[in-house]
Each structure stands twice: as structure tokens, then as C-alpha cells.
């Protein structure tokens, strides 16, 4: 089903703060098979100049998927069973580290048809609870067959 174009420009309310923990970073690093000590060992991270263990570059997907609140709106018309990931980009203003409390605001920046598919792009601005910019994520998902 075609996605509702009225959603372009729609922004989510700020997410509840996401608390970045050492345990979650370690679990995520283990899941991607990355043994880098700066993800697990506070002293190794501090020796590299970080305040605490830092998160792998793709870690923000854990909490920025909360753009999901818009994607799950039945008025958008997205069929999750047909969804695959199209594009992903992260702009990092600084590394994420354990102890960060992060808030995301997600905005639908684009909805378009490509062939038989529908594509929707959600931008998420991620800041600390104090408003310090941390990263900006761009997530494009594909609804297979949505435009047919």
C-alpha cells in the first residue's frame, strides 16, 4: 500500500532519555563480534582518551529506531512484514560513551516510490538531556511492493 505522503515533515516528540550502559555496549559489541577493548574495558577506553567505554559506530541504531513511533502510526500505512533496510547514515558529533543520557527527535524527511517499492527516510537528531549534540542518524527503510 502506498505510504501516506502527509507524514513528510512530521516530527516525533522527544524520546524518553536513553541511558547508555557499559553492559549494553558490551552486549552489542559481542553481538557484532568486535573485541575492541574500548567497548569493554573502562581503563582501555580512558587510556585512549575517552571518559568511559565508548559505543561502536552503529550502536545508535539501538535507540534511534524509536523513530518507530511515527513508523508504527496506522495512518502512515506501513506494512512491517514487507520492510527491509535501504540506507543508513550516522554523523557523529562526538563518540557515545557509557553514562550518556540521550534524547532523540525523529523527523520524516522523505517518502518516495522507487519501482514497486516505497521508501521512507527518517532523520533523528540525538542529543544529551542537556542538549549537547551527539549524533544525527538518517534511516531509509524500504517497503517491498508497497508502490504496486
Amino acid at each position, binding site marked *: 500500500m502506498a505510504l501516506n505522503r502527509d507524514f513528510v515533515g512530521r516530527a516525533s516528540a522527544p524520546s524518553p532519555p536513553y541511558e547508555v550502559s557499559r553492559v549494553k555496549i558490551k552486549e552489542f559489541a559481542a*553481538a557484532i*563480534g568486535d573485541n575492541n577493548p574500548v567497548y569493554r574495558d573502562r581503563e582501555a577506553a580512558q587510556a*585512549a582518551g575517552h571518559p568511559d567505554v565508548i559505543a561502536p559506530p552503529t550502536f545508535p541504531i539501538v535507540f534511534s529506531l524509536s523513530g518507530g513511533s511515527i513508523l508504527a502510526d496506522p495512518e502512515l500505512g506501513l506494512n512491517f512484514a514487507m520492510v527491509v533496510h535501504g540506507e*543508513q*547514515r550516522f554523523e557523529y558529533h562526538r563518540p557515545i560513551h557509557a553514562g550518556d543520557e540521550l534524547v532523540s527527535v525523529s523527523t520524516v524527511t522523505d517518502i518516495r516510490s522507487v519501482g514497486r517499492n516505497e521508501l521512507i527516510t527518517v532523520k533523528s537528531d540525538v542529543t544529551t538531556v542537556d542538549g549537547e549534540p551527539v549524533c544525527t542518524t538518517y534511516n531509509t527503510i524500504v517497503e517491498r511492493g508497497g508502490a504496486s
Partner: protein
Amino acid sequence: MAATVRYDEVEQGQEIPAADYQVRRANLVMYAGASGDFNPIHWNERFAKAVGLPDVIAHGMYTMAQAGRFLTDWAGDPGAVVDYGVRFSSMVVVPDDDEGATITVSGVVEEKLDDKRVLVGLTARSGDSRVLSRARAVVQLS
């Protein structure tokens, strides 16, 4: 924080040697749990086939994470990555066997930018398919 690679020592066009990353069903289960992406196309063969896929496929983000790991292993400090983006151009099909699938990642320094930054182009393949396209990162070197 600092990358272990020095800006003055890299040249435009320099290649970063390829590395292989194995992905088995168990990795996808772990990734689903760690990321919170429980879409059944990544762990349930019956569901994947019912929605027209050849088999269970890896999370695109799992593939992006492997290419990211390749990048940070080269740079030396994951905190040195300032921008990283990919397009998922083909699916990584993960059969239910002991081998799973292999993702081969390679890279090239495409451009030396200002402020000791470099643009790195990444290539990721699985079988005959290029699974990432327009995969690029900006890395702050020392």
C-alpha cells in the same frame, strides 16, 4: 582519543586489505537481542519464505557493523569515525548450516580532506553480490 593511522602517512588511492567476517544464524539471534530488531525475516525461515525472501537474511545493520569493524580496526580508535553511511544494495542470505555466509570487506582511501580527515570507500561482498553500495566513512586521522 586519536587514530593510530597518521594522515601524513596515507595516500589517496591507498587500499586497506580485505578481511572476511562470518555470519551464522546464531550471530543474527544475538544481534536481534542486542539491537532490539526482532523482525522475523532475520531468524525465522518459515516467515522469511512466506514474505518472498529466499531464506533468512542478515540484518542490514549487522553487515554495516562488520564494515564498521573493518574501518575501526584500521583507524585504531572507533571514536575517530566522524561520518559513516551505507546503502544496502543486496541481501546477505544466511543458510541454516555451520558455515552460514561470509561478508568480505575491503576499503580504499578515496580522498584526503582538510583537518587531517580522510574519506574511505568501503566494499562489502557476500558470494557474488555486492551487499553494500555507496559505503563511505570520514575518519579523523592523527
